[in-house]
């Protein structure tokens, strides 16, 4: 259930207002737009990185705005792609004169709306590139037709680092796409989630069952399986992700267990213990793994495994220090 809201119609607006009030030391509202950007605005001469999508996924997307990370985020209603007009306004709001990269997980509504925003910006002479994340191996056998889920994080992290250190638009775009090529995710759900103001969940999972390959918008899974122990689930996730491992990737990889909202940290650590061993046994050189919440689905119970392979060039981007409301590192 979603419990805390005023008028559900104003949920997004109330949320943005509270978010900006809480983290004004790092982010600010983009004037007249449904989005936020780094406090002080876009940096002259740096590529602007605009991430986004619907809300309900915090810290995706607005929690990942800050130094070394995304320049801004455009914020849609819960589980709803932001309108093209907002993509345009926020794109303009992160432009520092060196071009703008739009990055988001692939969903048809997002593709349409960001593309409409891109057209508007290009009409004004702003060079816009789109780095579309397609990490969800459950969504399609064809890499390009997949949805974007928790793997967003690694792509955004690389784009942010590349833009922040001053790379050109071509370079930022190319590096972001390289990360996406080497990132794979598979997720499972144990319970559905409920939109603000609604009393019924978007889907339910029968007791003793789990949904395999669900989306992060309350879409049910592609398959229903029997509930299993943490170590069995670890095996399933590792098998699904590795069965689609990129053939050209080196052995080093970042690894993430992402919680969907109601599956808590202790559980995820139990899961990670088994995942770690299985990935090591599969020859993966695990680098700075993460266990936490990176792309949630309101309070859905469930989690996903992401593996993002990297060479030295991509590792430097992953190591680049970031400061944002949701994720900060010393390097």
């Amino acid at each position, binding site marked *: 259930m979603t419990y805390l809201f005023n008028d559900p*119609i104003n949920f997004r607006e109330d949320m943005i207002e509270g978010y900006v009030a809480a983290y004004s030391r790092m982010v600010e509202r983009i004037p007249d737009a449904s989005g936020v950007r780094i406090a002080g605005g876009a940096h002259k001469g740096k590529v602007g990185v605009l991430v986004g999508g*619907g809300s309900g996924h915090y810290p995706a997307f607005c929690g990942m705005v800050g130094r070394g990370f995304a320049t801004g985020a455009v914020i*849609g*209603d*819960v*589980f*709803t*792609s*932001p*309108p*093209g*007009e*907002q993509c345009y306004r926020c794109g303009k709001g992160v432009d520092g004169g060196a071009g703008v990269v739009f990055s988001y997980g692939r*969903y*048809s*509504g997002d593709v*349409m*709306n960001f593309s*409409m925003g891109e057209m508007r910006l290009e009409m004004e002479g702003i060079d816009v590139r789109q780095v579309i994340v397609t990490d969800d191996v*459950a*969504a*399609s056998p064809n890499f390009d037709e997949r*949805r974007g889920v928790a793997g967003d994080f690694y792509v955004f992290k690389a784009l942010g680092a590349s833009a922040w250190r001053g790379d050109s638009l071509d370079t930022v775009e190319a590096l972001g796409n390289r990360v996406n090529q080497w990132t794979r995710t598979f997720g499972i759900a144990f319970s559905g989630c409920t*939109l603000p103001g*609604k009393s*019924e969940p*978007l*889907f339910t999972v029968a007791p003793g069952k789990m949904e395999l*390959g669900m*989306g992060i*918008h*309350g*879409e*049910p899974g*592609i398959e229903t399986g029997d509930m299993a122990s943490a170590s069995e689930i670890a095996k399933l996730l590792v098998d699904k992700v590795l069965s689609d491992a990129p053939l050209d990737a080196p052995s080093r990889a970042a690894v993430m267990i992402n919680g969907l909202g109601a599956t808590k940290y202790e559980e995820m650590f139990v899961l990670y213990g088994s995942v770690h061993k299985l990935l090591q046994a599969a020859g993966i050189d695990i680098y700075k793994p993460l266990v936490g919440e990176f792309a949630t689905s309101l309070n859905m119970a469930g989690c996903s495994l992401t593996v993002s392979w990297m060479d030295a060039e991509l590792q430097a981007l992953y190591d680049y220090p970031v400061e944002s409301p949701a994720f900060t590192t010393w390097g």
Partner: protein
Amino acid sequence: MAEHAEIAAAALDAALAAILEHEDELGKLDSVAGDGDHGAGMARGFRAAVAADRNGSAGQIIANAGMAFANTAGGASGALVGMFIMSAGAALTDPIDAAKVHAALTKGIEAMVRLGKGQVGEKTMLDTLIPFAAAYGEAAQAGLSVRAAWEQALPAAEAGMKSTAQMIPKRGRSSVLREKSLGTQDPGATSIYYVLAAVGRVLAEHCP
């Protein structure tokens, strides 16, 4: 003609009312294989559409409404329906007759297809819209009035909407879930039918 402009405005009001009446149902249809936001998104879109500038011709009012819809609703349907309304409105020049309305529908559908790359049979709103526009075109060619052609074409829209229940989706958020949505009508096809029916009622009341 001032009267056509008033009818256009009334049609938008009626569309909003129809969507609000069915908002929960549309959300539930969308949650079967999608993300459950279709009712809320259409409501947001039409709320903005009725609040848009209502000066000018019927076509201008509709185009403004479509722009407001696209700028506000969000989601796939926000872009698609917004572009449809906007393009249809832009094509609808005075003086209005059934042939002009058919041309406007055709332009609207073209814009939607350009954006979404869809076609009939893919379990989307196009399954309601395309048969409706085709039937409307025939009725217009047969010399029916704006209103009579609409009445005659509505059953084609309804049949199109209903046919989506047996389809497997190829576009949009629900396309990953293929079989899951079998037996359930497409939310977009359904909402568009409610809008078309509401517009029909306005025409029946106001048109000669």
